[in-house]
């Protein structure tokens, strides 16, 4: 028994080291001054970060990424919320269709999606290939599965259909029922899928590179462009970027945990 626990400890320990080494290496590299023939850096410095935070290009790229994320995630919430609500409550026979449409992106990677998008939008009536607008459309579809699952699960655990019935019998209109009874109860569930989508789009490279490329430089494009320049500076970008992702997923985990413990907020 004891020897087998040693095995588990060893295995998990090695795995954790294996998973963390690239991260720790990059972190050290981003704060290393001189480091070429020792195990740990000889000196530390913050100059790479200072250099990064003085780079206008970095801020511009960050702003562009943020713009894309806010618009596409915002659109997704505004469109998906009523869509899923209406279909589950009033057209439940179409639920299968909605599910199929929402889950299809799992089977169609960006590399495939891009092929059709380029074909469709580089000629013809709507020529938006190469502009941020095509990315917003593509991103709307990319985050569709997450938004769909998040919203649908919240509606299910809430038993939204019956709550709306109850509210309507008490004199509420459909819109009032949604606003006063459904929405306040699913908001934390939606927040989770929203944050997941944000972190997913932060790391999106394939669509950005294939559809728009350097014409609208996002954070990921900027990073890929910097790959071949100073390693220290790029490390600083990677660490900055990854810290943001960690912050997002950390919040997601915390929220999910809280939602599980306390299904619908007491206060």
């Amino acid at each position, binding site marked *: 028994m004891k020897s087998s626990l040693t095995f588990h400890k060893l295995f998990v320990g090695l795995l954790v080291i294996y998973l*963390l080494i690239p991260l720790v290496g990059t972190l050290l*590299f981003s704060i290393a001054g001189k480091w070429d023939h020792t195990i740990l850096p000889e000196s530390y410095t913050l100059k790479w970060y200072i250099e990064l935070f003085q780079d206008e290009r970095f801020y511009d790229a960050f702003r562009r990424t943020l713009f894309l994320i806010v618009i596409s995630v915002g659109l997704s919430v505004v469109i998906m919320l009523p869509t899923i609500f209406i279909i589950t409550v*009033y*057209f439940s026979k179409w639920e299968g269709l909605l599910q199929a*449409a929402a889950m299809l992106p799992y089977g169609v990677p960006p590399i495939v999606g891009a092929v059709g998008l380029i074909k469709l939008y580089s000629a013809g009536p709507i020529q938006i290939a190469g502009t941020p607008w095509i990315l917003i459309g593509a991103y709307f579809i990319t985050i569709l599965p997450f938004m769909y699952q998040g919203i649908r699960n919240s509606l299910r655990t809430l038993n939204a259909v019956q709550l709306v019935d109850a509210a309507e019998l008490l004199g509420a209109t459909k819109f009032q029922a949604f606003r006063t009874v459904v929405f306040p109860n699913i908001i934390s569930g939606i927040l989770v899928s929203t944050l997941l989508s944000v972190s997913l789009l932060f790391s999106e*490279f394939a669509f950005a590179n294939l559809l728009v490329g350097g014409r609208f430089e996002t954070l990921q494009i900027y990073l890929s462009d910097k790959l071949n320049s100073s390693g220290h500076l*790029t490390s600083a970008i*990677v660490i900055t*970027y990854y810290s943001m992702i960690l912050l997002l*997923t950390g919040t997601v985990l915390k929220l999910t945990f809280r939602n599980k413990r306390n299904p619908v907020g007491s206060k």
Partner: protein
Amino acid sequence: MRKIKKQKIYLLALLLPFIMFVIGFEIGPLVAMIKNSFYADDGIQVTIDQYLTIFKSEFYLQAIKNSLVISVFSAITSVIVAVIAAYSFTKFSQKIQNRLLMVTNMTSNFEGIPLSFSYIILLGNNGLFTLLFAKIGWDLFADFNLYSWTGLILVYIYFQIPLAVMLIYPSYQGIRQQWKEASSLLGGSTFSFWLRIGVPVLLPSIVGTFSILFANAMGAYATAYALVGSNYNILSLQIASLVASDVALKPQLGSALGVLLATTMIGAMWFNERMMRRVRRDLR
């Protein structure tokens, strides 16, 4: 009754934006791609030549083969590691298990361009480890080249493992202590429990996880792009260079390759869905 119908039309109108997005950016592009794959290079003549070209060309068959091999290999390795790791996880206290899951969750977000970069500074031509190993004199790593098949597989396995652990871990939770107790009361050994109950219960979820990882690797683009650029012949990179590069655009051929890739992936996803249905049934 008429009144109720009128209300439904008004509700249907609210579905329009969603329908437009799905047609414009999901179904539309797929249909356009499929249609485009049946045209000749001039975009006028209808033909199945593109598919014939692929299956006659050693180059593209090699790309498909490379993608398949790298996907299968990285998926199998990650599943094996994950099966052991997730089981080991269950041996620790709940608190440590949560910590470990957090580490896997966090590292699962480390993929694509940043991940490739990390590997470049660690194991690239002037990478920290490369230099360090050279100094110590470990010959084992002397021939190692990150920008090659081995390097690609190494990086793929890295981003597949956390995902595999997160997918497999929950099914261990489904194996209840009571089953083990029942089995031992009936005279079974630990080994026979795993042989007759544990593994059969886990199997659908293992196979399902494999198919997800397989699809994940087939569709991966950013990691490979950052690591090997167009130096290595795999499917996703070939499609990209056919439809969106600066040289030699052949959108029809790219479409045909895209159709093949999408078919493989949707097939894998469908297979996973069937497996998960079994898991849900078994663990009810």
